[in-house]
């Protein structure tokens, strides 16, 4: 039998007690209990009539009279206010986070960030042992955000090719392909703006082909632009029409440059040595032989100068191949979708935003709420324990 289990007679007595308290008749065996109840009840303190009147008045207008007890009762409003305030702050923080993260703008329509405008396509050299890929390719729609040129730095190499020092930074050639789509009616306008944007950034149109033939209209451009302005140009062109594809290639030509430069330095040194020999040559035959070697060296040195210039030019100038095809731009596609579809998409987008905000709010509020709940639960338990202790020591 557990501690809480009562015997049948004990249960019967408790049932009789309930009947006594309900003023119902009980058997003779419970008259003693009835007398006990009567004695306890008769000895209980009675409310003073004056206090009864005061209590009536106090409760008739509970808001008017603020006793010290009333003041204590009003206290629970503070946590509620704090909770509401915390909720508002969390919502504001979440809204700010969502706005700053670009979720509200859909997150897919950002134009690429302009490049950091390096003077040349020269990237910092990696630490020894670091595996540096000589070439790199980035492709995809502009949603990928930004372009690789964002990591380029402005390091101007020496233009004195005769020096023997190699480049302390990487020399990179950048080659990109951009495919745009625009309605046939806008083809000429887009083509004109591509040229204008290129020239505006100090670039040149190396070749172009614009064919206006209705739905089969097509334009292609081969552009050369200072490497540091490639990102800016791509960003500008991306605003002219819908971007279908973007492909970006980087080719590390540092080693080629260094090899050429080393070879040039060797040849320059050889030429100096030959010139000394020529000055001390005793016979005409010797002089003719040395002169012949010098001529060959001069030709090689000139070729190496040209190669170095070409490599440096590749690092300095990026190429961008732009193809414009006829097709409905995103804006036109939206217009063609009809008002209901557009409204549906907008509603869906609004729901996404609301969900994003709700998730962020939840992520912020949940830890606080759980902590507050645990604190409240702990405080309640401690208070209740203190009350029970007060009862034991009363």
């Amino acid at each position, binding site marked *: 039998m557990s501690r809480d289990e009562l015997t049948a007679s004990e249960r019967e007595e408790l049932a009789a007690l309930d009947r006594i308290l309900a003023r119902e008749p009980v058997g003779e065996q419970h008259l003693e209990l009835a007398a*006990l109840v009567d004695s*306890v009840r008769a*000895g209980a303190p009675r409310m003073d009539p004056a*206090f009864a009147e005061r*209590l009536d008045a106090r409760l008739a207008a509970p808001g008017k009279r603020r006793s010290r007890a009333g003041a204590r009762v009003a206290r629970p409003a503070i946590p509620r206010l704090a909770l509401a305030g915390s909720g508002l702050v969390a919502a504001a923080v979440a809204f700010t986070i969502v706005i700053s993260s670009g979720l509200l703008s859909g997150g897919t329509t950002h134009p690429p960030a302009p490049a950091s405008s390096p003077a040349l396509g020269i990237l910092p050299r990696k630490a020894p042992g670091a595996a540096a890929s000589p070439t790199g390719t980035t492709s995809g729609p502009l949603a990928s955000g930004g372009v690789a040129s964002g990591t380029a730095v402005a390091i101007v190499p020496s233009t004195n090719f005769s020096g023997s020092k190699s480049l302390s930074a990487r020399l990179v050639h950048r080659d990109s392909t951009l495919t745009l789509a625009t309605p046939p009616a806008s083809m000429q306008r887009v083509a004109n703006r591509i040229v204008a944007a290129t020239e505006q950034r100090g670039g040149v149109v190396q070749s172009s082909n614009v064919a206006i033939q209705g739905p089969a209209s097509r334009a292609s451009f081969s552009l050369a632009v200072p490497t540091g302005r490639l990102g800016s140009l791509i960003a500008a062109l991306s605003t002219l029409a819908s971007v279908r594809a973007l492909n970006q290639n980087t080719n590390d030509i540092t080693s080629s440059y260094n090899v050429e430069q080393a070879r040039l330095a060797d040849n320059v040194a050889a030429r100096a040595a030959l010139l000394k020999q020529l000055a001390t040559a005793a016979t005409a035959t010797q002089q003719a032989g040395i002169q012949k070697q010098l001529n060959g060296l001069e030709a090689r040195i000139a070729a190496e100068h040209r190669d170095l210039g070409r490599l440096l030019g590749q690092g300095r100038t990026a190429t961008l191949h732009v193809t414009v095809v006829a097709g409905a731009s995103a804006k036109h596609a939206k217009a063609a979708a009809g008002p209901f579809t557009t409204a549906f998409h907008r509603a869906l987008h609004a729901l996404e935003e609301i969900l994003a905000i709700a998730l962020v709010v939840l992520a912020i509020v949940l830890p606080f709420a759980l902590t507050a709940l645990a604190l409240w639960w702990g405080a309640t338990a401690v208070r209740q324990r203190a009350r029970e202790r007060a*009862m034991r020591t009363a």
Partner: protein
Amino acid sequence: MTVIAAVPTSGPGAGEQFEQLYRSSAADVYAYVASLLRDRTAAEDVTALAFERAFRRRALFDMRRGTPRSWLFAIARNAALDELRKRRRTGALLHEIADPSNELEDLDSDLAERRLLVREGLASLEPRDREVILLKFVGRLSNAELARVLRCSESNAGTRLHRAIERLREVCGVTR
């Protein structure tokens, strides 16, 4: 008695029902609190506080978690225990309830003697036993209500009650 001026929006613990609760239990709540505190002034404050709290929280009352009477007595009990804690901290003096012996003068001597004996016996009980007796005899709570106020199971409340009655009988020298 014009008790509650405010009209409740909804809920079983509000409005006329609250007034009814007040009418039917104010004297019992006071008797219970005064017996616990043994201080008339403090008992009056705590009784008023308990009803004010109950009135303010009437919208939170949930019938599924107990009867209005048990809810009210639980509030009164918490308020009384808070008062006991405060008194212990501050060392406040008791304003003992006046000796009611003079009330017994008009009674039959046997009855008067018995009541006096029970009163003294009750006062000598452990506080936890005295409380359960008061809640049952004065508060007239059912065992389920008793369990709710004491935060224990109904069977545990029944056991505690029965043991308290046995101890009261014992200290009063009552035989069955």
